[in-house]
């Protein structure tokens, strides 16, 4: 059952997955413990053991390691080891059967509801919701109450209360599959619904069913053991692990081993299954391997081979020298930005332009150690702010510079503002991060900043949440936040990309005004030469992580040296140009075609 997940279709991948599973020591331990228990339970009839039901009153409650009874005897003198192995067999059979039943009916409900949608879906899922509205085990108890105590009835009860879990999971997957092309194709070829459901949809849902089973079977064993413990499951003389524990409880103080042994067995069984189930899930989730689920650190990892000079005399406000940043990929580092250098003076605007994936955003984030790390690593170079290399600073010193001397404006303000805090609070927070002021003063300052960036009725808007504002207003909040501590440098990473064109123009105008009034140095990251032409004094063109061309905007626009620059410039359409645009651009891309 659980192992079947590891045998995925392609032989290549299976080997790979198997190795991964074995590399996870906990999962491997789970597999071996579970495998051992399973083999012993299956071999129970062949093992040389006393009959588990033969009572022997004179030898009752013998301690473990007694003559002829390795684990001692219970209150009726029965051999505990023998009862344990037979009981494990019963617990396994019942737990696995309950899982299979729940999977069968739950999956059927999920498949039909997800495939049929409409009324069928609503009715079935409301029924499932009702089942879920019961505190978990109580419904099972009510069912056993009605049907009468007994192992089979307990099995039915546990299976029934677990149906919703399967139904919901399977329905979700089915809904996403039913509209896929291959299902449409089958429908158009005249296949009936039942045939589509079982030959097209089911095979694709099967892995989910198997994974859900492997993660619930331990739980089901626990639950059936619980009902038996309460005396509602297995009835004497049949004993599963739960009823062994339940019966031995009366002698807890005089013969604790009779309780502890079956209890430890349940725990070992369930734990081994859970370890294995988690291991399988981890192997099958590709995101875990890539490190994409790792938590970003407060400062990007910095691992420079050669340390540059810590300070630079007579430097402009921002100097970047030979900066390289990469992403950890297993043991190796995949470079994303290579040997990038540029300078930015007070009141100046430098544009960094390139297509997506060219490394421009990674460059921008590297300056303040904000590349998500792990797996991001800064591998070489220096970033001088006011002549001081910030990559040589301690983490808390670098954090103190963020928002104070160097502030960021990010691309999509809906995802980059905190969704649960009012906007003025978020601006005030930036003020308080760097100034010892009262909350009230910070709030007052936030309102002023909102007015500065052109938000009318700021006092009223202050309490709004990001989702209640328009895209343009949100970006103005982002800019107000960046201005909160009068920074020297603003790094704007695609600040207008998520906005429509008219709003875009106004935001750019705002940035221009602020730059002129405050003498701000502006580093503008964009993919749009139109924006560069409108705002930037100088421009650096990035491709594949490197700066291929850098110079005055006017010069480069007039006489681009690099092919790639030419193409980027050509991509800015002119109003009323029509088809002429495509004719103009086409030859520039001809040579890049494969």
């Amino acid at each position, binding site marked *: 059952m659980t192992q079947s997940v590891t045998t995925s279709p392609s032989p290549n991948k299976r080997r790979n997955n198997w190795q991964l599973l074995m590399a996870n020591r906990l999962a491997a331990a789970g597999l071996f413990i579970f495998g051992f228990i399973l083999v012993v339970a299956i071999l129970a009839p062949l093992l040389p053991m006393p009959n588990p039901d033969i009572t022997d009153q004179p030898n009752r409650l013998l301690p473990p390691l007694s003559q002829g009874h390795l684990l001692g005897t219970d209150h009726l003198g029965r051999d505990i080891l023998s009862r344990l192995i037979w009981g494990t067999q019963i617990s396994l059979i019942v737990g696995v059967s309950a899982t299979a039943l729940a999977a069968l009916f739950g999956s059927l409900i999920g498949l039909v509801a997800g495939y049929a949608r409409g009324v069928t879906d609503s009715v079935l899922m*409301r029924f499932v*919701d*009702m089942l879920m*509205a*019961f*505190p*978990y*085990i*109580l*419904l099972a*108890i*009510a*069912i056993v*109450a*009605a*049907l009468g*105590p007994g192992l089979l009835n307990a099995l039915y009860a546990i299976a029934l209360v677990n149906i919703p879990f399967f139904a919901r999971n399977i329905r979700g997957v089915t809904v996403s599959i039913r509209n896929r092309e291959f299902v449409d194709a089958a429908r158009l070829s005249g296949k009936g619904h039942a045939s589509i459901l079982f030959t097209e949809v089911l095979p694709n849902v099967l892995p989910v069913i198997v994974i859900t089973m492997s993660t619930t079977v*331990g739980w089901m064993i*626990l639950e059936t053991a*619980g009902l038996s*413990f309460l005396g*509602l499951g297995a009835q004497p003389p049949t004993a599963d692990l739960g009823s062994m*524990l339940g019966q031995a*409880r009366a002698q*807890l103080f005089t013969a604790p081993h009779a309780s*502890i042994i079956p*209890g*430890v067995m*349940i*725990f070992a069984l*369930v*734990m081994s299954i*859970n*370890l294995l189930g988690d291991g399988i899930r981890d192997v099958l989730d590709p995101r875990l391997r890539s490190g994409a*689920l*790792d*938590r*970003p650190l*407060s400062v990007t990892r910095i691992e420079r081979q050669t340390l540059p000079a810590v300070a630079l005399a007579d430097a402009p406000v921002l100097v970047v020298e030979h900066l390289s940043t990469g992403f950890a990929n297993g043991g190796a580092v995949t470079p994303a930005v290579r040997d990038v250098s540029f300078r930015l003076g007070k009141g100046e605007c430098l544009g960094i332009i390139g297509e997506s994936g060219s490394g421009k955003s990674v460059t921008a*984030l590297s300056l303040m150690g*904000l590349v*998500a790390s792990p797996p991001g690593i800064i591998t070489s170079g220096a970033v001088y702010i006011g002549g001081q290399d910030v990559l040589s600073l301690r983490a*808390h010193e670098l954090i103190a*510079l*963020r*928002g104070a001397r160097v502030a*960021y404006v990010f691309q999509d303000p809906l*995802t*980059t*503002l*905190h*969704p*649960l805090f009012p906007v003025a609070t978020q601006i005030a*927070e*930036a003020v308080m*991060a760097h100034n010892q002021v009262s909350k009230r003063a910070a709030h007052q300052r936030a309102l002023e900043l909102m007015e500065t960036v052109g938000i009318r009725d700021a006092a009223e808007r202050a309490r709004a*949440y990001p*989702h209640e504002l328009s895209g343009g207003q949100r970006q103005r909040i*982002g800019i107000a936040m960046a201005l*909160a501590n009068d920074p020297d440098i603003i790094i704007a990473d695609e600040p207008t990309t998520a906005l429509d064109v008219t709003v875009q123009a106004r935001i750019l105008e705002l940035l221009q005004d602020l730059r002129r009034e405050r003498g701000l140095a502006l580093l503008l990251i964009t993919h749009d030469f139109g924006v560069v032409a409108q705002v930037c004094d100088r421009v650096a063109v990035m491709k594949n992580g490197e700066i291929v061309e850098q110079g005055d905007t006017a010069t480069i626009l007039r006489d681009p040296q690099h092919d790639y620059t030419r193409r980027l410039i050509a991509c800015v359409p002119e109003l009323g140009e029509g088809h002429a645009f495509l004719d103009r651009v086409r030859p520039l891309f001809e040579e890049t075609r494969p």
Partner: protein
Amino acid sequence: MTAYIAKRLLAAIPVILGLSIIVFLVMKLIPGDPAQALLGSYATPENVARINRALGLDRSWPEQYVIWVGNLLQGDFGRSYILNRPVLDEVIERFGATLILAGASLVICSIVGILAGIASAVHQFGWTDRIVTFFVLVGISMPAFFLGLVFILFFAVQWRLLPASGMYAVYGGGDLPDLLRHLILPAGTLAIVATGVVARLTRAAMLEVLRQDFIRTARAKGLSENAVIYRHAFRAALVSVIPVLGIQAGFVLGGAVYIETVFQWPGLGQMLVKAVSTRDLLLVQGGVLVAATVYVLVNLLADVAQAMLDPRLKA
């Protein structure tokens, strides 16, 4: 907010009706003829017909259901023929004890689970994370009824630190400190599994939130790492942790059945187990229905709390 609460309350009504239908249908599963069972050897056809008429069992199921619900709404849950007292009186008395036990467990699992989950996420792959992950795994694999016995063996028998069973000491008990002393072991045991689940999901929610863009914004503002994690990240993660706590409420209500049996806690769960073995079906029916209704209301509370935390959900 009031409108939102009213809306949720209205939505809970069909759910509770659905619960009552399921309980009604489960009781119809009972094999054999109830009149026959009741009369035993006196079950002549005339007697059976008379009993069926008296109990309303000769009517159609929908009719029986409507009459039954009508009685419930008037507070008439029937009479327990074993205890010879109204079902509702017994259920309410027992439910008080269960609420104390389950409530204490819910508090424990919320606090410990959330703190452990945050610590685990913040130190992802570090020692704290490994230790928490290990205990979570042990917690969710441990049969609570067995753990309770082990606790009794050590804390009550071996070290004589805490009482092994009951809610109050037989002699000289009855005050709050006495209740708390009796509460520690059962509430702690009941909380183990739920704590594991809460810790695991809090860890996942925190890691999910820490990858979001707005966390990068918080860092870009120059906030300290503590502010980023506890103010920004946890606040956002809490929105997805709250419904998990609602589900755990159902879990501790159900798990109380085992714990009350192990620790002789005079609650609803203990009552249900006894009622099942004596086949006191009206008592089972009443107990399950009351517990399920409370669970629905707790989840409603969780929904409201979630909407208060996340302004986007109110719409």
